[in-house]
């Protein structure tokens, strides 16, 4: 069941390097290739980047696809921790890694070891499966959106078929719980009594608080003061679930920095529960792994429904957890197209957006090398989106890698387009998507006219929009009053 976490893929396609110093010995790039070639080459050369001092000079061996499949459960290459356990460097090409204060390094290695253990632990997996089924409410439906499909039919009556993966129907109202419950169980297993997490829109906070309540763990959630105002219903919910909510000046990026600092100070007693696929290794891999239940279910459901695979996958991208959750299962399926949709906010040229992959540059942030929104000094820019959960200046290193290798495509959608999509889906399907997911749904407007008849499009409806009803209402009111 588990994907090989330690497998790091280095393509033989062109790597974009903004500065020469980015181009480490571990990266190989010769000339542009078509996406299909890239995938083929990339599947065929699986390289684990090992950065320990001695082995860097020896270079990294290449492992074939067969070996990849057969060794899915064990890392091909590794460093050894003090206790002789195997850990990897957590690189996706040049992205990822562990750029954190030295104090955290050992903790991260130990976390990775524990994580590998649970992936192979049948008892843990069985408990997790039960929790996902009975507590979270999985499997979530793969829902055929008839009226949306009709909406995208052209004048000749042809168009793609739109399916929504209903992560909004999870307990808590978003996909966040998939990861939160799994990591909380992991934390409990390793004996931690208290969990610390940061949340943007509050969905991860709610999910974590819920999981902690269920497992009897103490819970502290850091949330940006601006976000607390915008998503106040989630704040109240977290408190009801027993969490201590600590306000941090600013928004999610500031809350996340503070959560990491708190973690550094309480390494032995508390567990930092990352909500999204960013941060130092193994956090991005852990989150992706626990979210990849979305993609696995989708494959199974697609087979049941139409006897095939999805043709196009669409997901919104804040930091990447729901996108990777849907995409990861299909990475090696060359015929499955992947589209991530970021927040263009008030427009890409306005400077008020959160489109990291569209407008960011590669740098190091919150422990990982990835694309990020930074100014000319390398200071981090505060982003904006009406989808609060999309507001993050960084992005998952794995998504950065998928962008560079052209395995996935990334586009953007403005606040206005997201609001329009929210209303459209409400009216056409009686489903109220979160504003974050509305970004993915908004992109259908641009995508569908270009798709052949019968293309199967699966959109990850990553959350439900109760929390956003007031925001949308206010936005529309303000628009109407401006027009008057």
């Amino acid at each position, binding site marked *: 069941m588990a994907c090989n976490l330690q497998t790091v893929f280095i393509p033989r396609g062109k790597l974009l390097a903004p500065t020469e110093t*980015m181009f480490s010995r571990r990266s190989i790039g010769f000339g542009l290739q078509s996406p299909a070639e890239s995938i083929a080459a990339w599947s065929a050369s699986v390289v684990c980047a090992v950065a320990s*001092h001695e082995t860097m000079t020896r270079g990294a061996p290449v492992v074939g696809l067969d070996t990849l499949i057969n060794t899915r459960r064990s890392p091909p290459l590794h460093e050894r921790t003090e206790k002789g356990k195997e850990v990897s460097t957590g690189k996706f090409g040049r992205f990822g890694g562990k*750029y954190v*204060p030295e104090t955290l390094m050992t903790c991260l290695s130990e976390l990775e070891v524990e994580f590998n253990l649970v992936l192979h632990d049948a008892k843990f997996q069985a408990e997790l499966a039960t929790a996902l089924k009975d507590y979270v409410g999985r499997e979530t439906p793969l829902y055929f959106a008839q009226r949306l499909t009709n909406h995208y039919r052209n004048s000749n009556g042809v168009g793609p078929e739109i399916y929504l993966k209903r992560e909004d129907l999870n307990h808590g109202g978003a996909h966040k719980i998939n990861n939160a419950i799994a990591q909380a169980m992991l934390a409990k297993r390793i004996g931690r009594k208290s969990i610390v997490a940061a949340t943007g829109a509050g969905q991860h906070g709610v999910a974590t608080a819920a999981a902690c309540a269920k497992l009897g763990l103490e819970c502290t959630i850091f949330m940006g003061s601006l976000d607390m105002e915008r998503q106040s219903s989630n704040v109240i919910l977290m408190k009801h679930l027993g969490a201590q909510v600590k306000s941090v000046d600013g928004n999610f990026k500031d809350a996340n*920095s503070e959560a990491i600092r708190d973690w550094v100070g309480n390494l032995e007693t508390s567990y930092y529960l990352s909500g999204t696929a960013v941060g130092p290794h193994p956090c991005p891999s852990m989150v992706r792994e626990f979210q990849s239940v979305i993609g696995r279910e989708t494959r199974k459901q697609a087979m049941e429904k139409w006897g095939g695979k999805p043709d196009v996958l669409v997901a919104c991208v804040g930091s990447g957890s729901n996108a990777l959750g849907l995409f990861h299962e299909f990475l090696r399926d060359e015929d499955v197209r992947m589209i991530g949709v970021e927040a263009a906010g008030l427009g890409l040229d306005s400077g008020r957006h959160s489109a990291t992959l569209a407008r960011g540059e590669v740098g190091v*942030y919150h422990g990982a090398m990835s694309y990020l929104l930074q100014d000319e000094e*390398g200071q*981090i820019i505060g982003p904006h989106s009406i989808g609060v959960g999309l507001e993050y200046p960084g992005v998952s290193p794995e998504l950065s890698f998928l962008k560079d290798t052209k395995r996935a495509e990334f586009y953007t959608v403005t606040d206005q387009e997201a609001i329009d999509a929210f209303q459209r889906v409400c009216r056409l399907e009686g489903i109220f998507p979160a504003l974050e997911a509305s970004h993915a749904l908004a992109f259908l407007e641009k995508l569908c006219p270009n798709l052949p008849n019968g293309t199967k499009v699966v959109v990850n409806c990553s959350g439900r929009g109760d929390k956003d009803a007031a925001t949308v209402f206010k936005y529309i009111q303000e628009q109407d009053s401006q027009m008057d």
Partner: protein
Amino acid sequence: MALTLKATCFMQLKKKSQENLLLPPISQRFTTSIKTFKPPMATLSSVSTVGLSETFTRLKRQGKVAFIPYITAGDPDLSTTAEALKVLDSCGSDIIELGVPYSDPLADGPVIQAAATRALARGANFNKIILMLKEVVPQLSCPIALFSYYNPILKHGVEKFMSTVKNVGVHGLVVPDVPLEETEILRKEAVKKKIELVLLTTPTTPTNRMKAIVEASEGYVYLVSSVGVTGTRGFVSERVQTLLQDIKEATSKPVAVGFGISKPEHVKQLTEWGADGVIVGSAIVKLLGEAKSPEEGLKELEIFTKSLISALP
């Protein structure tokens, strides 16, 4: 930024010490600082050519322990930083760590975070800091080590960053969010430009890893005294004593202890335990940043620094 600080609030005894730049007497040294004063030192070849390791070598010969203060550049403003550097130098600091303010300092507690925020709000940026250093470094007798997070270095380009800082006379660099595994690029460029890249080891670092770190560290080894971010603490953990012993078994390089050191008692304790240097950050940053006025801050800085240095052998 104009150097508008008037130096009327602290003592101004001009001494011949300005000429004895290479071997400054540790006891009283005072410098005059007036905004339009172009110090005669500029005409001497007075750029401190002594690096971090050499400073420690000299101090060891003299049986002394290094005092290494840390301040954030640009808090409350760059001209005060310039004066603070001079004050710290004249009070007898052996090395000064100068922090480059960053929007998301993961390793820093509230005091240094606030300092960075204030500095950035006042418009401090890398170029302005370099300009300030260009003027001030020739007036200092002790070497400067820059303290910067990795992203701003990457953004400027590692090679360019190293050249730029070398050109203004910086001797060392500390980057708190780059683990040993990722330091290769930094170390390569640092060695080329003869900048000493100081690495950090912590109470959570296992022995084998600690050995690799101290092997690779240059200038000195930065021992983080506690598990957490920067910020003053009530006492220095006893673990530091054991950690110091372990490190000294692994290397003969000098070890300086930082994070949480804020009182003469701490300084004394660390000296007894065998530290080769003590690093004081938040306590000093707080003084400067929260003072009623820059002048007040500099005055308090002088008093505080002297009290700490007097606890050293």
